[in-house]
């Protein structure tokens, strides 16, 4: 157990270090002139040189990387080239928004996807099952921006022009300032994001359930005279859920790094939005920080999921 944890954390750190190296190196592969961009077109050459020196961009690349790493390990993410704000502040502002979006959507798609999957599996080839399959197919084949646009068009634009302003157009309200408005503003983005992901969970849950329902231990449970609903939930779903939980951990972690399309569509200034705009501005410190943060989520989620696997299935031994 401890050995497993140490090994996984070490390999996670190695992965993160490699990612930092690649992201850092990428900026010097692509042609760019950061000081010129910061300063503007009317800058004199001496001003550009001054900025270059201030940012340390005149130093050899390994030295620059070393300084970056040194600062990073001391918890200093640097300052944005674009607006000189501390990167930690920018991320601190964006993270709660992305987390609100991702976690809310995750709850929706997990509950919805698993519920539809279970119902489909319990009554295969029924009307409900077919409806679930169609739902899954639409969700799987629909691009995420399309469902967002459709939701916005029908539930925001159409309703609002009809005088029913049920949904706000865009923006974010902090959960601490007004929890109701927070949820109100996030409702459409949650649905947009959950819809496309839920489809995967419908299929995964349905397939797992169908497999488990054919197992001998389900026959045993039924032969015991246990109620049908209990057989479905406590016996079958419990066993079918293990791979679902694994998938869930990875999916959620991926979204915590930023849901670019949904954030942009609904005007949510989250991590994805921050990453995209920083890339276009060649704002290297912010880009590296967002990429690393997303990687941290994935690495941590992988370790957590493996630990969870051992908790969910007593036959699994970590080592």
């Amino acid at each position, binding site marked *: 157990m401890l050995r497993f944890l140490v090994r996984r954390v070490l390999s996670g750190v190695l992965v993160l270090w490699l990612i930092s190296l690649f992201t850092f190196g990428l900026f010097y592969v692509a042609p760019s002139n950061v000081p010129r961009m910061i300063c503007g077109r009317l800058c004199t050459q001496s001003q550009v040189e001054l900025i270059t020196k201030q940012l340390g961009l005149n130093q050899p690349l390994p030295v620059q990387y070393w300084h970056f790493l040194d600062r990073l390990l001391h918890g200093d993410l640097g300052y944005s080239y674009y607006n000189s704000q501390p990167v930690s502040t920018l991320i601190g502002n964006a993270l709660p928004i992305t987390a609100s979006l991702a976690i809310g959507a995750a709850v929706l798609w997990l509950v919805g996807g698993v519920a539809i999957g279970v119902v489909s599996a319990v009554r295969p080839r029924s009307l409900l099952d077919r409806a679930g399959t169609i739902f899954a197919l639409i969700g799987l084949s629909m691009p995420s921006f399309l469902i967002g646009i459709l939701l916005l068009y029908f539930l925001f634009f159409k309703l609002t022009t009809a005088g029913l302003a049920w949904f706000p157009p865009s923006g974010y309200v902090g959960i601490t300032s007004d929890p109701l408005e927070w949820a109100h503003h996030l409702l459409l983005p949650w649905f947009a994001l959950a819809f496309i992901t839920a489809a995967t969970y419908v299929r995964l849950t349905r397939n797992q359930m169908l497999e488990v329902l054919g197992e001998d231990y389900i*026959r045993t449970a*039924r*032969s015991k005279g*246990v109620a049908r609903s209990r057989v479905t939930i406590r016996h079958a779903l419990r*066993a079918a859920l293990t791979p679902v939980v694994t998938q869930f951990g990875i999916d959620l972690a991926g979204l915590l790094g930023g849901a670019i399309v949904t954030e942009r569509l609904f005007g949510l200034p989250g991590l994805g939005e921050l990453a995209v705009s920083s890339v276009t501005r060649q704002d290297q410190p912010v880009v590296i920080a967002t990429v690393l943060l997303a990687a941290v989520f994935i690495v941590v989620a992988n370790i957590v999921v493996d630990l969870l696997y051992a908790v969910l299935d007593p036959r699994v031994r970590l080592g």
Partner: protein
Amino acid sequence: MSLLEVSDLHVSFRTTDGDVQAVRGVSFELDAGRTLGIVGESGSGKSVCTQTLLGLTTGARVRGTARFEGEDLLSVSEDEFRAVRGAKIAAIFQDPLSSLHPLYKVGWQIVEMIRAHEPVNRAVARRRAVDLLGLVGIPHPAQRIDDYPHQFSGGMRQRALIAMALALDPKLVIADEPTTALDATVQAQILDLLLRLQQENGMALIMITHDLGVIAGLADEVMVMYAGRAAERADRRGLYYRAHHPYTNGLLESIPSSGAAGARLRPIPGQPPSLIRLPSGCAFHPRCEFAMDRCTREQPELVPVEDGVRHASACWLPGRLLGTTEEMKRARQDAGAAGRTVERVPGQSTGQDAAVEEGAA
């Protein structure tokens, strides 16, 4: 009144290839405290037959009656059936590893069984589960109750399943190949255990197996099944020493016995028939070395043969030809040849061939 009276049970499953006729008119009865052995190859319908008694054949079309303590299980509501299942009729299955839920502790699974039928609290049910585990011979039951199934050995898992089946003192236990997945030495222990518990509790037992040897020392009566029908029914002695049906005799001759070392085993030629397209007449005729013309046309019913009261066989051969002695074999061959107009090789013929033969005859 018998404890269990099954009469004219039919079970079929609809598949894309056609209807699978798993059970085609099986009748039997079983008195309290007695043991019935059901023997047959895989696909003979022996498991489907008993799973129907537990209401486990979902999606199947079931016809006939199965009276348990006078009540027809096949026409009661799902809730009434559920109350019987586990409490009055309990089951033990073949593979104890896959039959126990891998993610729950053994004790939890026994406690669940008790609490599904009796309004007792967790602590009481747990104490009973510990006693049950001790009863079936699991050492240190108070500790082992918190083990997961994968921490048990194969024999211990089957013991745990038996403990679970006995938790509510059922009137009838259905054991579906309970020893097939176990080592030979463990097999004997488990059979001994079942027998001892049956004597102590006075429950009736249906023992399903493909191995006549397993039920030799166990069953009061034996029913041999072939292609969804009863081929022969007899008490244990009648079946082993005076079998009538060629299929039963074939099974007896294919048992390796330690007494007849060096003797050649005589396997039954051919394969069991498809339950979707059954041979005409007697389903066994394509594999039967004594098959007569009549066998390809008419399906024999289970009728008494000329010895005991309860010995019956579904075969057109004369009812006096019993047992596997050389004399009887010759008599059967003569009887078969007399009823035959076309020479045939058993094991080669199929249902379709039989129809052709019939046309030729």
